[in-house]
């Protein structure tokens, strides 16, 4: 847990808020829902303790003990981690790979309920979605069966592996060779379909991680004393 002074220094908020000492409320007590600008609130958000309980925001839960996948069988989950590792060029045991694989398990597990919710739309809600996204996107939401793509893809990968143990029984080189076959492939088979889906999820997972954002050099969600804008074209 950081102190307020630490976060102020760390994020540069100190510079931005330094000259500002707050507002004298006088005698009036503010009714619930009415607020004054506050460093304390901001410190709360930045101290790794983003929201207090009771709200609607769903945070990552700190887990104790080993991860139990909700959708993937243990051997399938090993395949997921191997592939995620290969897509990122990381070891399957790396913390970043575990972080992303856990989120992908949640996403794939939820996909059936998401699709069911889309199919349960009332006619007016479906009309709105079609006019908003275009009919093709709505059809995809209703018809694209993520769990089937994943199940068939995993089975296909195992079928490509000659010996016992399926994909997990292959050497690293063999696994890599197989991924080369299904990555960016124009053929349409369960392997390529699964890989295309998985790569998209790994991209989403990685570039929303701390490591991924750092790698991109992302310079937003920050504190600036003046508005960011063009600095080099016209001075």
């Amino acid at each position, binding site marked *: 847990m950081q102190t307020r002074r630490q976060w102020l220094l760390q994020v540069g908020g100190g510079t*931005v*808020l330094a000259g500002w000492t707050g507002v004298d409320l*006088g005698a*009036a007590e*503010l*009714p*619930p*829902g*009415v*607020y*004054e*600008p*506050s460093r304390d609130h*901001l410190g709360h*958000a*930045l101290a790794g303790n*983003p*929201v*207090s309980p009771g*709200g*609607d*925001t*769903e945070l*990552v*839960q700190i887990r104790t003990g080993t991860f139990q996948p909700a959708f993937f069988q243990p051997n399938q989950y090993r395949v997921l981690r191997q592939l995620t590792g*290969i897509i*990122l*060029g990381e070891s399957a045991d790396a913390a970043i790979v575990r972080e992303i694989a856990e989120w992908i398990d*949640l*996403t794939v597990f*939820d996909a059936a309920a*998401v699709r069911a*919710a889309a199919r*349960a*739309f009332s006619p*007016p*809600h479906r*009309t*709105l979605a079609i006019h*908003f996204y275009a009919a093709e996107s709505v059809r995809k939401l209703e018809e694209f069966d993520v769990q089937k793509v994943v199940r068939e893809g995993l089975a296909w990968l195992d079928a490509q592996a000659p010996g016992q143990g399926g994909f997990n029984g292959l050497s690293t080189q063999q696994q890599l060779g197989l991924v080369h076959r299904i*990555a*960016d492939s124009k053929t349409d088979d369960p392997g390529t379909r699964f890989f295309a889906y998985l790569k998209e999820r790994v*991209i989403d997972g990685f*570039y*929303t991680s*701390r490591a991924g954002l750092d*790698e*991109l*050099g992302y*310079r*937003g*969600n*920050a504190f*600036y*004393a003046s*508005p*960011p*804008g063009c600095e080099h*074209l*016209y001075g």
Partner: protein
Amino acid sequence: MAVKTYDVIVVGSGASGGWVAKELTEKGVEVLMLEAGPPRVPTRDFTEHIWPYQLKYRGFGNQKKLLTDQPVQRLCYACDDYSQQFFVNDSEHPYTFPADKPFMWIRGRQVGGKTFCWARVSYRYSDFEFKAASRDGYGQDWPISYKEMEPYYDRVESYIGVSGSYEGLPQLPDSKFLPPMRLSCGEMVAKEIVEKKFGWKLIVDRSANLTVPLNGRPACHYCDQCQRGCFTASYFNSPSVTLPAAARTGRFHLVSDAVVSHLLMNHEGKTDGVAYLDRSTHAAREARGKIVVLAASALESTRILLNSRSRNFPNGVGNAHGVLGHYLMDHTTLEEGGGKMPALQASVREPVGRPCGYIIPKYVNTVGPHKNKNFLRGYYFAGDGRQELYGHAFSTPGFGREFREKVRSQIPYSFSVYAQGECLPRYDNYVALDPEKKDAWGIPALHIHASYGENELAMQKAMQAHLGEIMDALKLEDRRPPRDELNIFGKNIHECGTARMGNDPKTSVVNAFNQVHDVKNVFVTDGASFVTQGCWEPTLTIMAISVRAADYIADEFRKGSL
């Protein structure tokens, strides 16, 4: 037990209600504000500065919950993993529309209303709007002119803070500005080309974000997450700007979770207050006031009037001539145009966080040579130029470290442009009480009947052509053409009209001071009272007319004439 009678009851706590409460309480009037939604607690409900990896769904949202509970609200760009709490649950808030006339009704019910998640774009209207009918013969003028509105714009802007640049454009009058924000690199490139080729200005947007400290609020720190709440109160929302001012007077009483259903009418044909239901328990309650101001958002204020049916007012209050509910407007937009600026592809990241984009103000059918006789009124262009964050990763082939290195070092530069145009006020676009459907509190739901007419469709063709010319001039690559269909009615969340102002009670609902013609102690101060809306965002004007109405109410109240 004697029920307390307040001087004024204000229904709704957003942009309009907040200003009415502030002005009235500061002038010595005692105000009871009723808000249908709950209070938002910054430490619990604000998600500013949260990173995607701190969220269970990494910013992509709990889709099964969103699709089930918020199938309409989720369509708003701001209703996401971070901010869905600022939008209503659609199953509690039903409305209906004909199958061929989809309408998107985006609603924020809480202390602060939609000011938590508004896009903060702040433009003054000019006589191109207030006196549009006199210029081209269509519809009606507002009963007020720009000259009359000017001091109220001044007052609002001086208090909330609007950043922008002085341009001297007659069709988009300058505000009392705080220093402007800055254009991005791509926008600087576009500015030069657009100004040379079309003679149009391309300027940084005018936004209710503080670029310098104002009235005890620190300047914006440019995290670009305004719609998640703002701990530092550096953009305008009513809970941190107007409502605290009202509270400081000691004459402000706020009751949240109070869902107003209708006005209570007495035998003199005036209102005595409102009936409401407790949001959680659904218990029926009443509040008494000498004056009632409806500021519940355009369609909600009109719904309350329509639902205030009695023997003397069989079709609702303010509806003696069948005008209430009619002349609904929302802006038309042609979206999603854009492409890449290859010359600005880079390997290094630029700082990001400016909470607005650029605008090319309306020129068509206003000033300069761009006249088009195929339609009345006009449109503006807006968008932004920025580096892709990681969208390009999806089209980057390969995997592994080499893939990551490409994504990191080959950063495409995207430029987006869309057009937003005026929707003419037509009698045929209306809301009425649905004869069957009711909301979670048993209040009749709205039936919304709205579609674009010939003028909007003719304007769409011109927008499309101009967007193409702009993209050509900018030599955008990997071009994304604008959509071939106007946005869904309501999507812009600029719904206005349905209780419009005017001097003639036969063709309008409220007078020039937002006072209902039929019932002198009822006022409608929000967007419902708009006569036209040009192509400009309405909130600044909603605030300015609210201040003007509040001045009038305070004067009349003192005189005892209400």
